[in-house]
């Protein structure tokens, strides 16, 4: 059959349009982001300025990091509801450590380690005691928040300006070290998921844990590692958040888990496990951020902003379903 194909005159136009469709399909999230940016550029003056965009980007490190972890967990077939609280707990640890006289690098390390421990506890309870991950991380959401209040005495702890170096824009780039760090995490995570053996294992476990087990993959260990990654990234997000505020707020990251799930879902991640992309989830983060800022700039009230965000989340899933039905 292959032998005959050169003899047939290629029908260029349908072929082109199909390729365009497939391209659109592959980059649907990206295209949506561009459409949204374009809309705001037309609707608001000065939206597409260096200042606005870098301001938006520099708000993002914490949400980006948490979303990367969440996307891993979702693809692996779990969910991590504790990320917002773990962020607050890590930030609290950083604040308290600095207040106790330790240097900032030591405090940062302690904060990230706190996230790792929280993730480990989630993982041990969730995979090895076979408790539902939803419930375990819901418990951690409460417990970590409680610890954050306990160790800070429910007070904001001032850290000082030294930590804010992380969020000072690099002069010639207009981007902060924190955002660059988040970008690197996105790139590495994307690479891990798409090009490594471990990434394959995550997808396999999320798609069919039983078949994964039959293929010699340990689903429990895989989920444990993924929950630890999510904890570490939440800890790192705690550091970013402290740097952003210059202090530690035990109320930080309230509801952040939902924003992260929303970003992952907008990026096409399936809550049933097995399907998703780190890069697209990051675009999902950008869509949420651009929407928030753009709507604010054209003078939309806070309640209405939330309505729009809700509609966008549902719309993203509708589009995704439609796409899945059309393209086998």
């Amino acid at each position, binding site marked *: 059959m292959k032998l005959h194909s050169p003899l047939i005159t290629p029908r260029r136009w349908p072929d082109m349009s199909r390729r365009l469709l497939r391209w659109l399909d592959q980059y649907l999230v990206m295209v949506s982001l561009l459409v949204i940016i374009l809309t705001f550029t037309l609707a608001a003056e000065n939206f597409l300025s260096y200042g606005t965009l870098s301001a938006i980007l520099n708000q993002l490190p914490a949400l980006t990091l948490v979303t990367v972890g969440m996307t891993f967990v979702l693809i692996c077939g779990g969910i991590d509801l504790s990320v917002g609280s773990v962020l607050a707990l890590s930030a609290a640890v950083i604040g308290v450590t600095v207040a106790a006289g330790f240097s900032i690098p030591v405090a940062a390390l302690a904060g990230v380690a706190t996230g790792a421990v929280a993730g480990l506890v989630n993982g041990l309870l969730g995979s090895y005691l076979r408790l539902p991950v939803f419930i375990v991380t819901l418990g951690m959401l409460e417990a970590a928040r409680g610890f954050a209040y306990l160790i800070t005495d429910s007070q904001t702890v001032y850290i000082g300006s030294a930590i804010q170096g992380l969020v000072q824009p690099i002069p010639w780039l207009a981007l902060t070290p924190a955002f660059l760090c988040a970008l690197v995490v996105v790139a590495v995570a994307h690479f891990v998921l798409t090009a490594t053996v*471990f990434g394959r294992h995550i997808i396999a476990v999320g798609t069919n844990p039983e078949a994964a087990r039959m293929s*010699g993959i340990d689903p429990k260990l895989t989920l444990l590692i993924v929950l630890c990654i999510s904890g570490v990234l939440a800890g790192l997000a705690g550091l970013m958040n402290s740097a952003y505020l210059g202090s530690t707020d035990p109320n930080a990251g309230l509801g952040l888990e939902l924003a992260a799930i929303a970003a992952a879902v907008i990026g096409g991640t399936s809550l049933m496990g097995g399907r998703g992309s780190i890069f697209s989830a990051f675009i999902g983060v950008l869509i949420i951020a651009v929407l928030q800022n753009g709507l604010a700039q054209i003078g939309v009230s806070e309640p209405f902003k939330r309505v729009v965000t809700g509609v966008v989340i549902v719309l993203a899933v509708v589009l995704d379903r439609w796409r899945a039905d059309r393209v086998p």
Partner: protein
Amino acid sequence: MRLQIRNLRKHYAAPVLRGLNLHLDAGAIHAIVGENGAGKTTLLKILSGLTPADSGTVVLDGAPWAAKNPKAAQRAGLSLCSQELSLIDNLSVAENIGLRALPGRLRLDRATLHRRCRELLDRFQLDLAPDQLVGTLNLAERQMVELAKTLNSEARLLLLDEPTSALNDQQARALHAMLQKRANNGVSILYVSHRLNDVLQLCDHVWVLRDGKVVHNAPSEQLTVAEVIRHMSGKEKLAQPAIAAQRHGSVHLSVRNLLTRNMRQPVSLDCHRGEIFGLAGLMGAGRTELLEAIYGLVAHTSGRVELLHADKRIGLTGVNDAVKHGVGMVPESRASQGIFRGLSVAFNATIAQLGRVASRHLLSRRREATAVDALIRRLNVKCEGGDQSIEALSGGNQQKVILARWLHRECSLLLLDEPTRGVDVGAKFAIHDLLRALRDQGVCIVVASSELQELLALCDRIAVMSAGRMISTFERDSFDQEKILEAAFSAHNTTQMA
């Protein structure tokens, strides 16, 4: 209710019913017996509206009738008690039994429900509280509740599929007494069972099915168990493929007194390099449980599984261990345990041994594509290429991809559970050829199959299991279909006589 079936046909991947004729008078109890895959369950499914027939007629009390769905069948007076129990774990015994017509208008009338339930349970000599949750019952109790639910209806034609498979003799006798009473009241009963002694005692007439047709039918008093088995297996000796018994190598898999929580008896066996070892038995004989135990999917409660490599003995304790030491398994349920849905053929084929398409931990697309293309060609998988989604493939080709997974891994021991179930004939022969080729390369292969013909054609040795027990082993030159069937039925019949 009078039932007549004429020329009933049904085709799934292969023909299951090919022109079946059968009739049943009001108030009669007729048995349907046959090997696995003879078409018994399919016949009951068609009658009860779970699946439509391709052609043929069913006549109920003189009027032609076709069940559109289970509800219509129920209204017409048919009631099925199937092998797959249909109980709801989170409801009580009484609620399950009375589910079709719960008493009370708005508020559930518990008193009436429980009273009716207790009457029914008493007749079964079943010591259960009506308000006990079904989820807390054991298998035999569940089967009794399912039967009580079936008998609770006003059905005039009862279809019973293996109703006594989990029951002890006393419970079975209680059931038989109740069935007899129903029959005396004019209810007709079709009774499918492997317990041939029961069948001959209880039923008036026996229909023997083979390959989707009735091959023999006679009143029970004119039959013996041995005769029934002879009819089921077919009188003519099957022409054996001209393959000499393989001279196999040293022992590779050694299983000693292996027991897990879902096995009934400890099992021991030895398999050799370059041997295809078959596991035969009826539905529920424990073949799948044995394979899962060897593979380590279920924790061992006692016994050992060892691989013998040159001079080393490697004890296997869990599935990760097994895969690491070169064991692979093709599971019975392709959809739930085998394939990764929505992912590519390449993903599915390489997942058990990514090391070979990666350096360190980084995947190499190029090496993956080369390896997958080679596998697709070697197994003749019909697909557009490695990137195609596995769901787009036919059942046979999906099965080939799962086999490819273990070829890619280069296993020394392959465990196959129903490797050709739901697979078309062409793919089936291709899979057989592949297994023989692997055998000739020295791989040790264990195949469990419900299809005796498949085992006879494929295996060098066949072990027969019955009710969880290893009964006997047949060498290739002493394969005898009748003796194998007799062994497969043996545990059912001895427990009956005991």
